[in-house]
């Protein structure tokens, strides 16, 4: 069984203004990924797509095959796994390639949240029910993903003494990394004081605790390693992956607000790759809010449960830190394209394409994606060498 590798990575324009639908951005990202790999559309025999709830399936679903003018495919799926879908399509592509179902699988994600018909805040608000009474949240003024994550963050603050200054340390670190990423949408230097002065959006989150929504698309080509041998770019190996899911029963005893299944997903992914946490050179997380970086690093095991706040405040995730994290500025300061944000940055680092933000000797990347509100976790281990190589 030939291993699966990432042979191509492509970006559309990433912008805070309206330049077209997600479908159009997905086309640009796909063309860019094929060009990067040195492949033609006729080489593609698998297509996997994922998108946020504001993007209709008609725009970026199974019909995207036609939009992209592809011929007959041996694999085609539109995967709905919330924010973790991007990592799941990489998993499915890898499994399909290993099983011989397909040789070159194009994995595409795009989003167009800014300047769309639905205001960004409302688009988020409509998609985050806290319970199963339709409309209950809006009736109580509970709007948005930031609220849902804020409720979880508050639990962590109370249980473990995590502070808004700890959240600030994550924001400042992300901004430092973003400074070296030409694709990052916010790159001006930020201090802890800047964070503390940024306005409250919904306590406990200030403006700089929240990711900036963007419009853009990212595509990745997953190929059979043998078939990718002579392609344009050095391969990045998909060495391992794992998932962890927990439903929130909104009932006494449920604690996924402060203890997520990222731990399960990460352990499974590392075990599959036959690697240890200590082998990880860069960690790319789904940092839609500063709190998620803290809880994810704890659950992955980079620090003990409850110590994520001091861990980030001590500079461990910064450039030169013990575990460089979200090295392109993440979703907070880089670009929020769901799971494709951490995935794309891991590929950039392992290729050595990180320029001013390159982590020296980055050979093993742990990517931690999440979806829902702390519910769904998918980790990928990407490496520069084949397992056992």
């Amino acid at each position: 069984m030939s291993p699966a590798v990432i042979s191509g990575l492509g970006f559309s324009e990433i912008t805070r203004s309206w330049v077209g639908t997600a479908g159009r951005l997905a086309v640009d990202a796909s063309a860019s990924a094929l060009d990067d790999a040195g492949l033609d559309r006729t080489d593609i025999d698998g297509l996997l797509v994922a998108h946020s709830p504001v993007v209709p399936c008609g725009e970026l679903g199974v019909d995207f095959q036609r939009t992209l003018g592809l011929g007959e495919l041996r694999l085609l799926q539109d995967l709905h796994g919330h924010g973790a879908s991007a990592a799941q399509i990489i998993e499915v592509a890898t499994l399909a390639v290993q099983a011989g179902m397909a040789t070159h699988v194009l994995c595409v994600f795009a989003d167009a949240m800014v300047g769309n018909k639905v205001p960004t805040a409302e688009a988020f608000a409509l998609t985050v029910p806290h319970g199963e009474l339709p409309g209950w949240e809006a009736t109580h003024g509970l709007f948005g993903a930031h609220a849902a994550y804020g409720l979880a963050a508050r639990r962590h603050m109370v249980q473990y003494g995590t502070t808004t200054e700890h959240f600030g340390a994550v924001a400042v670190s992300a901004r430092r990394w973003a400074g070296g990423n030409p694709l990052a949408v916010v790159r001006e230097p930020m201090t802890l004081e800047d964070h503390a002065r940024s306005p409250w959006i919904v306590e406990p989150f200030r403006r700089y605790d929240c990711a900036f929504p963007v419009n853009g698309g990212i595509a990745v080509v997953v190929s059979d390693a043998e078939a990718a041998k002579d392609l344009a770019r050095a391969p990045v190996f998909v060495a391992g992956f794992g998932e962890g899911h927990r439903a929130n029963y909104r009932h006494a005893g449920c604690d996924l607000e402060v203890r997520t299944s990222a731990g399960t997903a990460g352990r499974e992914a590392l075990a599959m790759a036959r690697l240890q946490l200590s082998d990880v050179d860069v960690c790319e997380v789904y940092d839609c809010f500063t709190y998620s970086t803290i809880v994810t690093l704890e659950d992955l095991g980079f620090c003990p449960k409850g110590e994520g706040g001091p861990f980030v405040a001590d500079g461990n995730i910064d450039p030169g830190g013990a575990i460089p994290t979200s090295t392109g500025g993440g979703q907070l300061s880089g670009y929020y394209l769901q799971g494709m944000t951490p995935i794309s940055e891991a590929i950039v680092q392992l290729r050595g394409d990180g320029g001013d933000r390159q982590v020296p000797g980055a050979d093993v990347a742990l990517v931690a994606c999440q979806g829902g509100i702390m519910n769904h976790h998918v980790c990928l281990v990407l490496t520069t060498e084949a397992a056992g190589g």
Partner: protein
Amino acid sequence: MADLAIDPAHQPFYDALADGRLLLAFCAACGRHDLPGTGTCPVCLSHDPRWEAAGGAGTVFSFLVFRRPLHPDFEVPYSVCVVELDEGPRVVAWLVGVEPEDIEVGMPVHLSTGPTLPLRFRREDR
């Protein structure tokens, strides 16, 4: 106020709220209380929960203070709580009579709802 889309299966729940009472879905088979939801008990998979009035006592599980306006019907600042009822379920509600800066996780509260939503709780000294 934003519109509720009432599931017909939840009508008794809303009718009771109009009388100031909070009903829970009680599973007689296993003793689980839940907010009305799927109609299936997640513990024992029974499909016929019965309605039972909540005692009204609970504690603040988590809370938020909205400071940036997101909707014209809600003037900032305002707080929104998740209350964990003594029976177990966690419900999104308002805590009235307490300034946002005085709300604490774990604070004992008691149902104090009127004929209309939002669902309201008051601080209770126990």
